[in-house]
């Protein structure tokens, strides 16, 4: 693949939507690195496969709900549970967690993943935009 062919805005083929059921994490090679496409909850998300922390392959990590704390009304701790509405993408290098929806760090605004647009054509072809 020619580097010159991949100007910003270029679409890179990912696959057919039917090949990307929930739970798929597809890593697409592009010049200078990789883009990860993650299928979760009926949506496709794409991020640069380089973590905002130290550069780890963040798109290859676990997708898991945010851990929440349950308390009684008088602030006694009952325990912990997984959020079903806030999936996190967790980098496998050190475990930093990012909001799957936006790529922002779950806790530290200094860290944010580089997001890529995902385009799904009517025929089901999926591309990411560099």
């Amino acid at each position, binding site marked *: 693949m020619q580097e010159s*062919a991949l100007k910003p805005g*270029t679409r*890179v*083929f990912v696959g057919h939507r039917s090949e990307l059921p929930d739970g*798929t994490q597809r890593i697409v090679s592009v010049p200078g690195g990789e883009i990860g496409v993650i299928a979760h909850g009926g949506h496709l998300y794409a991020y640069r496969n380089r973590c905002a922390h130290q550069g780890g*392959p963040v798109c290859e990590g676990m997708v898991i709900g945010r851990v929440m704390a349950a308390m009684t009304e008088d602030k006694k701790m009952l325990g912990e549970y997984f959020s079903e509405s806030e999936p996190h993408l*967790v980098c496998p290098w050190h*475990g930093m967690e990012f909001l799957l929806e936006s790529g922002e760090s779950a806790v530290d605004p200094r860290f944010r993943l580089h997001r890529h647009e995902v*385009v799904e054509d009517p025929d089901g072809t999926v591309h990411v935009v560099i």
Partner: protein
Amino acid sequence: MTETPVRPDPTLRATYRDVDTGSFDTRELLANARRQAEERDLDRMLVVDVDAHHYETEAWSEIVTYLEDPVLQHLATAGRHPSLAKTSAFLPTQISGQQDLAGRVSRYTRRHLEKLDAAEESTKSNRTAGLARRAMEMMSIDYQILFPGLMLNLGLHPQKEFEVAVARAYARWLTEKVIPADPGLRTMLYLPFNDPEASLELVKEFADAPGVVGFMVTATRYKAVHDNAYMPLYAELERRGKPLGFHAVFHRADRSFEQLNKFISIHSLGFTFTNMIHLTNWIVNGLPVRFPGLDVVWIESGLAWLPFLMQRLDHEWALRSSETPLLTRAPSTYIREMYFTSQPLETPEDLSILETTFKMINAETQLLYSSDYPHWDFDVPSRIYDLPFLTDQARRNILGLNAARLFGLPTEPRLDPEYLRGGIR
């Protein structure tokens, strides 16, 4: 975003792969570390990793064959097949299975799936060296000092003869089987510190063994470093020019830590607190004055504890110098002459805090890059390389030249950039 071209060009059918959690390969996990190394030309710079780990528990069946005492040897194998050899009689354990963040840090649960080439898979020691080799090559590390894992708490074993026996078996196994298997590997050997005489004997026996660049005391133990029994050991290390490292660790059996319920709490405090105790004793009892030629290295406590301890000790010393008769200058001035490994390097939002810390500890000459790979909070070399306040010389010193000077290593990179870029086996 502009939308060109509209239709996919067949040449843009990029190669892709789907994440497969049923396999594991260091070269895939650390592919971005390789990219970082190439972007920064680290392959043409000396990088020494002063603290990395292997899993001695995964090679235990080989290590126990070096136990010299037949009774202990029998206990280790329980008279059974070597694959059934148990660590639990020898290595104190604790509730600690949370290091991998419940599987979020993938290498803990998957590293056993990694396949090396046939020669490296032929023995557990070769596999140990082979895994280290891959990590070094991916991170552009020329030399790596390997430390064990569970053995870091061996100093808590109730039978000190076990500590001595395991330390000797480990020293022989590591120096005969692992270190010779890769030219990049070095060790600061585990000292059975509960037995000062045995520690001295181990230094005498192994100081000149290939790859031994120093010796190491693990920080979870209850025998103070200034005990007179250790003076012959320190004198011997000083005479031989071998640095003494203190490797931080924690143990939940320490009563003051029993209240700390979460791993984040005990790891944050434990890894600094245990080294604070030994460093405080080291200074207050004048060991830098007694052994001015003995280099000491404080390993895996990060750096933020040092500004605290320097200020605190200086403050009290100014008022209570009667308790420190050997000290002729402020405690912090001795600390500035010691060595420190960099990991886990803290990340304050205000970088001037880190810059001040570097100044306080004379980082340009005293700081030693360390990865701690493969542990959960490892640091890639780019952590040091990318610090905006470092001069080029400071960066080179911290990444490799300080360690080369301290441990007598070559000052040129060992790994061949052409080989690294051609694809690592």
